[in-house]
């Protein structure tokens, strides 16, 4: 579904990604782990084409959508408008269909009652669900999530694990999740790539390890 060959990326002579190569198959959840500044977000941004890479190639069969760490909802639009604005622009004849689809996704994610609210009136967790819903309505094949548990407590992190897992199962969306939280990633991913200093330090299936968190910590 996504193949990346020898991607390199530098910012002002500082090498952020060096020779990154991997491929992912449909419907899996890939965790991108590593300490702050190791290149996780940059790699996601390169996949989404928000950044260009200096060297390497990428093959992608399908639509990619990006869920930002700080959600980036449009503050002057209601939750429903946040979801339907882009699809309505592409196909103006299907506005009613988009509205129904958006309401159904919101209901599915447990925030059906928030459709007419503005983002300012939502909690952090609700904003995250809206951001997720806004990505899902575009029918992505691959969903890129940048630090989805940043700043969340343990119980909310567990909510995010079950939310993303259920989205992965229900919508069949392949996910790449960047996070520095190893505990979270080992619970959600079926494969983890740990980046260190811009290179792949380890590529592992956490389900095959007895203690995946400690195993990954060795490479941190």
């Amino acid at each position, binding site marked *: 579904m996504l193949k990346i060959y020898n991607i390199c990326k530098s910012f002002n002579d500082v090498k952020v990604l060096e020779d990154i190569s991997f491929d992912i198959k449909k419907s899996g959840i890939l965790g991108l782990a590593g300490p702050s500044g190791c290149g996780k977000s940059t790699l996601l941004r390169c996949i989404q084409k928000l950044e260009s890479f200096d060297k390497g190639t990428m093959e992608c069969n399908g639509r990619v959508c990006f869920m930002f760490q700080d959600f*980036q909802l449009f503050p002057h639009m209601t939750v429903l408008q946040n979801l339907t604005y882009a699809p309505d622009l592409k196909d103006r004849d299907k506005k009613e269909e988009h509205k129904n689809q958006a309401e159904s996704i919101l209901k599915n994610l447990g925030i059906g009652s928030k459709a007419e609210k*503005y*983002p300012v*009136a939502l909690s952090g967790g609700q904003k995250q669900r809206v951001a997720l819903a806004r990505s899902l309505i575009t029918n992505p094949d691959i969903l890129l999530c940048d630090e989805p548990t940043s700043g969340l407590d343990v119980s909310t992190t567990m909510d995010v694990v079950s939310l993303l897992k259920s989205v992965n199962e229900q919508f069949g969306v392949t996910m790449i999740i960047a996070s520095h939280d190893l505990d979270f990633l080992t619970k959600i991913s079926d494969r983890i790539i740990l980046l260190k200093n811009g290179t792949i330090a380890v590529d592992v299936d956490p389900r095959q390890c007895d203690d995946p968190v400690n195993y990954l910590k060795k490479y941190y």
Partner: protein
Amino acid sequence: MNKVIPNFLYIGSGVLLTLQLTFGGVFIGTILGIVLSVLRYSGIAGPIITGIISLLRGTPLILQLSFIYFIAPSILGFRLSFLWAGIWAFGINSSAYVAEILRSGIESLPKGQFEAAKTLEITRFYMWKDIILPQVIANIFPAMVNEVIALLKETALIAMIGGLDIMRRAQTVAAEQYEYLMPLCMAGVYYYGLVLSIEFVGKKIEKWKPYAKDS
């Protein structure tokens, strides 16, 4: 004392000209300011636009007004009335400030808003029209109200080319009656009243922002 009311009314009849110059100037200034901003951000003639803005902000308004009223006719081939010369001079001058206000408004938006629009495959036109500008306009509104107030006070320069605005009328009364205190205080009352009215309307509009309310 028996001249107080006639003087007050005479000075007050300059309010219309002051308002024409202010709102005419703001209208032209806003349109030209948006054009300057778009040209600067689209990369067309960026350094030239930056130079024009710098020149307009770096020279006195009275100089620009004199240029348009006294020198431009020899270039254009016709003379503008003092009203239109004033509106264009105040508008052109204001456009530089509006362009700077817009720049600060655009730069204050998180980069992620542009990126979110890009990831949702929203075209540049709709991104600017429906995502960026509505947020920028809401953010810069208080600064735009300040610009209107500043321009209102600057319109007193129209006296230099013969416009009978509030200030010019106050000076005329003062010169005729050898009495400065009362006419100047009257002019001050008119200007202050106009500024308070603009502030009042501005605050009312500013408060009308449904998405800023936590409900």
